[in-house]
């Protein structure tokens, strides 16, 4: 018998396989949730970066006059200090942007499309956007300026909401992990009550007895965590593969931020620490009921 190890081998315990299996499922779910939270966060950041500091100006009028007017505006706008780049979006480019949504070339060709000016600012900040908008309005009062903020904020709010839901899911998984370990530890205490009583009566300290259960919970949880991560790896690969098939215009390429990768790798360890504390607390509480 190894020194300090008094419990029967875990393979003889009915709870051992249960804990490992449940932890594997919970770590899998936590992995999905953490990846979702991280990816959505990165996606919002990607949208934010690509949109901040750009403006789209719609020039009203019929096709012939609006493009001439747009060229005139571009010439003046380029001299403004806030502007880094200003270009009229060609009619073919506008039609190209619409093609994925409308599809029919003839229909698009017949549409009375306004001229668009794509503007990039030197400094991507709300103040710079404000100044540039005012200056453009001073040049042509009837243009419509879209700084993409409204729709971006709504999408970002929605995405952040999803991200919070994912994090809540992860928190619930970890909460379920605590309950699982507490339940399993209590079941083990019942299973090994005779062993515990004998250890107690021959003078084993509570901390010693509790650590036997805690380290067992740690081993079972670590195995469960590793199995959960192994199962999660192909799921992550599949999700990544499917995401990459989506058009860049709809969903920009997103990579999971490094802290989330670290979080994923640490999931089994986090689960093990939670299991250690939960088991230690549970056993000590039960032992405190003995004289």
């Amino acid at each position, binding site marked *: 018998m190894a020194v*300090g190890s*008094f419990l*029967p*081998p875990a393979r003889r315990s009915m709870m051992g396989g249960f804990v490992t299996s449940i932890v594997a499922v919970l770590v899998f779910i936590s992995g999905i949730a953490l990846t979702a939270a991280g990816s959505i966060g990165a996606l919002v950041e990607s949208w934010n970066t690509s949109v901040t500091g750009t403006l789209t100006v719609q020039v009203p009028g019929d096709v012939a006059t609006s493009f001439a007017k747009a060229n005139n505006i571009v010439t003046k706008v380029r001299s403004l200090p806030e502007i880094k780049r200003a270009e009229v979006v060609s009619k073919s480019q506008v039609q190209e942007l619409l093609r994925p949504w409308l599809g029919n070339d003839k229909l698009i060709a017949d549409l009375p499309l306004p001229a668009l000016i794509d503007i990039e600012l030197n400094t991507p900040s709300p103040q710079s956007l404000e100044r540039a908008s005012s200056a453009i309005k001073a040049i042509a009062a009837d243009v419509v300026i879209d700084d993409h903020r409204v729709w971006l904020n709504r999408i970002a709010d929605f995405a952040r909401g999803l991200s919070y839901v994912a994090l809540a899911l992860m928190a619930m998984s970890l909460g379920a992990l605590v309950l699982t370990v507490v339940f399993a530890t209590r079941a083990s205490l019942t299973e090994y009550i005779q062993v515990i009583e*004998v250890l107690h*009566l*021959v003078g084993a300290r509570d901390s010693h007895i509790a650590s036997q259960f805690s380290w067992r919970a740690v081993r079972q949880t670590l195995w469960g965590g590793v199995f959960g991560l192994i199962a999660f790896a192909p799921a992550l690969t599949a999700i990544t593969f499917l995401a990459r098939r989506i058009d860049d215009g709809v969903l920009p390429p997103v990579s999971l931020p490094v802290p989330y990768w670290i979080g994923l790798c640490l999931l089994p360890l986090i689960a093990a620490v939670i299991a250690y504390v939960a088991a230690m607390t549970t056993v000590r509480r039960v032992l405190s009921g003995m*004289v």
Partner: protein
Amino acid sequence: MLFEDVSLRYSNSPDIFSELSLTLPARSLHFLTGPSGAGKTSLLSLLYLAKLPSGGRLKLFGQDVAQASRAKRTNIRRQLGVVFQDYRLLDHLSVFDNVALPLRVIGTTEETLQQNVSELLHWVGLEGLFDALPAVLSGGQKQRVAIARAVVTRPKLILADEPTGNVDDAIAERLMQLFVELHKLGACVIVATHNERMVERFAFPRLHLDGGTIKVLPALARGN
């Protein structure tokens, strides 16, 4: 060991015994006798700190067990050796590991432990069963393992609940001789028994528990 008006009851049931007063000196050996149901096992459970008195004061090694901290109670337990009536061997441990358990709990080195446990197992006649699991042992063999586990740390107080109940006369005498040896080495020993022949054979005073009271009676006859 000092009992001052000690009583014990389980939850709302009547007292098993009440107002027991008794002082037992160190280095003494007593039989604990009395009819079945008199409370011998309950009295022992107070002494090995499985229970606390519901009234009165019990002092072991100069410490009031009810007032002692948890850590102090653990230290008291480490000075006790208990032979349970139902042995309470750990089924997943070998004979050797069962006997070595109290030594491992107190952190004895493996080298010392190997020597002490081996010697003791030879002494109780279990030399060929070091690696056997309790499940394959007879009642008498289990009894001897339980006794070896109780005395392996050379405790100051040895409590034995019917330690010769499942062994033949020759083994019973040998086990009693072991208790006598430990008593001579300085331990206080209390042996609860129904075995009147053994009580007569070994001339030691008796603690007789009956009707909720305890009396210290002289030895029945001269033996050794």
